[in-house]
């Protein structure tokens, strides 16, 4: 049993976001670099509001070029079809052999709404309520075909055990889905769901459905406060709060030297900027910060967004991670092969399986 503080295994993730890069090569290169550092997963953001490729497509392209690292694209829930979204995430899990995650996001602007012409922009808390429903129905659809459904019974001529396929009959506030899914249950059972819980309206959805919550905050105290609230809410939703990993999300600029923390940065901690909390300094000081926050039980790990991807990711892997490994604080190889295994999360039981418990 993990204690309620963050002193379990340290988890590290990195964002691969680059400004409007559309070819496969540079994404593959960055993902491989992150994998060399043994990171739990990489994220790739996505929005209809700015130029950029479809993130889930990019990480599907990256999947066969990598072997262990988790792949977590942002997929929005506001203007998309829940049925297609869950099928795409499940397929990412199949093509990556159990390394898929899904960073759930909403589309808040009227500009995005106009790209679809189906509805107007609505308040964020309403969008996050719907995102929760999409996260919920996705997991039901992933369960809608049991793991052992495919029987290939030559004597009866049946390919599939029809009792092991299930309608989900989900009715949400704005949509309904009959099911079952077209995609067999993914290798991880449920691909890992990630929610940025920094904003208040996303927090209940994160506490209820996320396996990993991201918190953008410049001070340990801020992260700890959100983490406590998430764990509290998770308990109220009937979850074991230890099945929720909370990662501090920071922008990192490692452009300086080994120890180059500017006043107000690095040793002094990250600084709040318009783009979010920014750490600017050297990779060694970043390792100190990571080790410190983790040892204090504030976080389960970090999600780091390089301000200059190629430079910062390389310094992160070769500097910060190497140092954490040297101190025995971070894995030096992947003992598991799925993202859930990296995160220390069990493969969920199927809610429809007769012998399994509810997940």
């Amino acid at each position: 049993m993990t204690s309620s503080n963050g002193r379990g295994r340290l988890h590290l993730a990195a964002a691969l976001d680059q400004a409007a890069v559309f070819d496969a090569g540079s994404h593959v290169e960055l993902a491989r670099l992150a994998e060399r550092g043994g990171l739990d997963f990489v994220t790739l953001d996505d929005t209809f509001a700015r130029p950029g490729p479809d993130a889930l497509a990019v990480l599907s392209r990256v999947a066969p070029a990598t072997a262990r690292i988790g792949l977590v694209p942002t997929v929005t829930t506001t203007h998309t079809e829940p049925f297609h979204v869950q099928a795409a995430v499940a397929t990412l899990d199949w093509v990556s052999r159990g390394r898929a995650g899904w960073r759930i996001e909403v589309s808040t602007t009227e500009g995005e709404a106009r790209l679809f012409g189906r509805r107007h922009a609505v308040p964020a808390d309403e969008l996050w309520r719907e995102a929760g429903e999409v996260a919920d129905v996705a997991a039901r659809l992933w369960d809608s075909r049991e793991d052992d459904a495919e029987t290939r019974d030559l004597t009866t001529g049946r390919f599939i055990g029809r009792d092991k396929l299930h309608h989900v009959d989900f009715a949400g506030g704005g949509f309904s889905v009959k099911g079952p899914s077209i995609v067999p249950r993914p290798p991880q059972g449920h691909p890992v769901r990630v929610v940025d819980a920094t904003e208040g309206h996303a927090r209940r959805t994160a506490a209820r459905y996320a396996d990993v919550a991201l918190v953008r905050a410049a001070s340990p105290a801020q992260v700890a406060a959100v983490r406590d609230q998430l764990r509290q809410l998770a308990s109220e939703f009937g979850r074991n709060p230890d099945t929720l990993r909370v990662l501090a999300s920071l922008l990192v600029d490692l452009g300086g030297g080994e120890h180059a923390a500017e006043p107000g940065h690095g040793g002094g901690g990250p600084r709040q900027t318009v783009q979010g909390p920014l750490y600017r300094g050297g990779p060694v000081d970043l390792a100190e910060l990571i080790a410190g926050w983790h040892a204090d039980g504030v976080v389960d790990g970090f999600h780091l967004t390089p301000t200059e991807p190629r430079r910062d990711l390389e310094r992160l892997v070769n500097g910060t991670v190497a140092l954490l490994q040297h101190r025995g604080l971070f894995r030096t190889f992947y003992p598991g092969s799925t993202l859930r295994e990296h995160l220390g999360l069990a493969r969920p039981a199927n809610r429809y399986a007769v012998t399994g418990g509810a997940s």
Partner: protein
Amino acid sequence: MTVRSEPRGRRPFKKHCHLAAYFPGVDNTTVWADPRSKSQIDFSSLEHLARTAERGLFDFFFLAEGLRLREHQGRIHDPDAVGRPESLTVLNALAGVTEHLGLAATVNATFNEPYELARRLATLDHLSGGRAAWNVVTSCDASTGENFRRGNFLDRADRYTRAAEFVGLARKLWDSWTPDGVSRPFAHRGQHFDIAGEFTVPRSPQGHPVVIQAGDSDEGREFAAATADIVFTRHGTLEAGRSFYADVKRRLEKYGRTPDELKIMPGVTVVLGDTAAEAQEKAAEIRRQQVSPQNAIRALEQVWGADPSAYDPDGPLPETVPVADSAITQGRTRRGDTVAIAETGVPPLERSPRVGEARPSKEKGLPIRQTAIEAGGRQSFVGTPEAVAAELDEFVRKDAADGFILQPLITPVGLDEFVDRVVPLLQERGAFRTEYQGTTLRSHLGLPDPAWRG
């Protein structure tokens, strides 16, 4: 190699054959009972098929789509392979293990939105270096609608007007960035869509991904002539093929297009043997494997529209047909509904045996299953590699087709033998490429790059 001229003498050069491979998906064509049959979903299966197709220098690899599992009286139809990957996601992964092979996804225009789908297709085109294709299908099945926000379904006419507007709008979005990388705002107001804004993806390597239209109906042919690059049609006799080919190509002129700008590719199955007799024997065995006793009963039901489950598949066909119940089967393409064909993106090749259409067999005293096997469509090309290569070449030379979409019968090895034994013979005949000439799917197909209409 002698270059035989066309009967009409139109072509001074030998017409090349185009080849595509289809992922054996969810229907009774897939012989899952064969001991060589492996997973329908593991990436290794898809990778093997795609790599084999690329080894055979195929034009493209093709995935169908089904958005609602077939059901029978509220329960899942269980005799056939069921379960498949989401097409675009798996093709992006396959782009990472192939270099030249075109990657075609069947995606429904009824249950998707133009902005998102155009973006996903443009992304695949970027990530694959210009190898993306989209097989445009529509859906008329209310049961499929139950999985989507839209719910319900569109009637036949609306499905085609929506699909046409959808494709036109996708092309507008693909043209919304200038070739030198400047994003420009778009606006569209039509019968089905009213959208505006900026596209998030620059013009992709092919300009527009290749557009495929499946289905043989008059509406489908017109739609293809107006906007598609490939027609995925059903395979028939040489004469039927020539007639279809001539009809579709004739329609191009009024859209200001030349006959070469639309390729006609029937879906086919091939069974090879060392001798003609051995090939026929293998073909018959495959049909037996495809039509299990349960499948024979279900096939009967599909034709009757009534429940025949009380009958013994090894017993004789009943004298009278039970009363039809149109609600009995859903999520399934009905034979004869050429528009419904479009739903899965697959013309009903040898998909389901036509039991009820084979009443005379009762006189022959055959049991239900045997009748289903006899009545089921034959494989398209059965014979020695030499004979099959000659026949394929003949179809192309005589303008019954521009190429073929092969449906392997076994996942994942069903393409191996064709690539090893038939492709070299097609090459010897001068009927098929001996290396890839370009890097994009358009270059394989000999299609022009679409003009930019900014």
